[in-house]
């Protein structure tokens, strides 16, 4: 299965999972809820927050 990561939209606050691998080329991402590109990957250690 493709690797996944948690993302958070910094516009509407929506959290979601999307395919991600550190080896991938950077990709254009959009929030599935509001369409914003201010999408931040939540890194492992910050997940609990």
């Amino acid at each position, binding site marked *: 299965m493709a690797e996944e990561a948690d993302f958070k939209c*910094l*516009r509407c606050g929506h959290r979601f999972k999307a395919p991600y691998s550190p080896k991938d*080329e*950077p990709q*254009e991402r959009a929030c599935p809820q509001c369409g*914003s590109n*201010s999408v*931040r*990957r939540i890194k492992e250690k910050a997940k609990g927050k």
Partner: protein
Amino acid sequence: MTDVGRHPRIELLTLSEVVDVQGYIGNFRIKVLRKARYVDEKECTACSDCLEVCPVTKPNEFDLGLSTRKAIYQPFPQAVPSAFVLNLEDCLGNNPIACGKCAEACDLKCIDYDMQDKEVEFRVGTVIVATGMDVYDPTELDEFGYTRFENVITSLEFERLINSGGPTEGHLIRPTDWQLPKRVAFIQCIGSRSEKRGNPYCSNICCMNTVKDSLLIKDHWPEVEIKVFYMDIRAFGKGFEDLYKRSKAAGVMYIRGIPGDIREDPEAKNLILLSEDRNEGKVVEHEVDMVILSVGLVPNSDSPIIRQLLTLSQTSDGFFMEAHPKLLPVDAPTKGVFFAGCAEAPKDIKDSVTQASAAASRANILMSAGKITIEAITSHIDEELCKACGICARVCPYHAIEFDKEKKLPARVIEASCHGCGACAAECTFGAITMRHFTDQQIISQIESALGENPQDKVVVFACNWCSYAGGDFAGISRLQYPPSVRIIRTMCSGRVDEKFVLHAFKLGAPIVLVSGCHFADCHYISANRWTQKRVEKLWDKLEKKGVRPERLQLEWISAAEGLKFAKVMKEMEELRKGVTMEEIEYTQKEL
């Protein structure tokens, strides 16, 4: 092709592969691997004596496996040079000496089994990429039965069948019984215009190719019944509609609807197509003798190699991206590189010739002038400040920065290659790079004047020249309203937006900063906006560490056509701004 081969000032390198490209406009150095032909191309007269004695038989690639060739052969009848070529992999036991019949048969002694591959280097001023395309392989579309049913063939295989130089000398036959098919069906859009399987784009040529093929059949064998299954016929070029009408007048039946399934009658090997006629609104069964799948075009499988060698970029369909879709449709983003034909997008012969002529002229203009004028927005490296870290060379999408890792000398900008995106200047942590007309000082002054009064009421927006700034323009001319709190600072590329610009804006009391640029597929600087995204991601981490809400730094990709999106995003920025408290702003100013 023969003219090219004969031209005294054109050197044609066949059986060759470009392995390295260095340099820049006016000064490209191209390394080419000339593969061993094992036949002296100057001496060989293509007499075929060798061919007669060669015991090896292989499928003929040019005839798509519909005929055979020998291990020594001429790739196709009009090949230039007309000399034969020996494929060592097909040659007996991979060791020609073990057989050696061809060398014995050749009176002119042109065959040399010891010939070696050779690497040669050229210096050229301009490059034209005319690497063509491949055709879609319909095997994965199981419902059409290609490779399962012998009488289902592709439009390219049909071209070989009906060609007088082809395997049947131009006689239309169906593969199972070598008889003239009485009923032929063409199915359009195979591998094209589908989001799910194949490709979403229209391959441009297939409709007219089918119209032409149907007329060819009708000219020679008027009794053959032809049905064309289509979604819509795209006959938009000069004279095309006329040709389409001629085909209909000749009795070709055009049926709107693509068959969902093909079955084979196991005895007669006829094919049964089930399709909905959308014009009639009913499902109909059609029995035919042969089916021709009108396959679409796909990017050449070697495109990624060429893309890397010449620092090109590609559109989402995988074809090469031009420097500007309307104003520079023949130029590549890398200066001095041009496109001709299907390497850039699917197109027919006429359009390919038009683009090739344009590419030749574009290259010629540069070469006759002997010098180029560049825009005064290039990057400049101060040798005193440069610490030779090499980061700038790594981020430059055009390889316009020379940097020698071993020697650790200061980096140097090749101004002729620099497009002025500013990514290097934004990444250099030593402040060694100045962008002419977009200097740090100029941008910082703009930030300062934008936030000079009541900064808490402002939103600072960095907008790239080509897309988001143009999107703002579009919103303006469309008379779309957006909040007056927005202060726009234009850079050529969002890649120019240095971390320190964003931090400076926050330090001066900006509640919200937006960095905006082109969508990834539209970046005017190949990939410079990937660095924008990486930088913004790093800044989010940095702000969070300092106790500043990362939400205050926003990122958005807005195209020049997205005036509506621009206005909507500006309204969203204003909403976010209202949520930022004075305490937050003061805390940020203290922390940064």
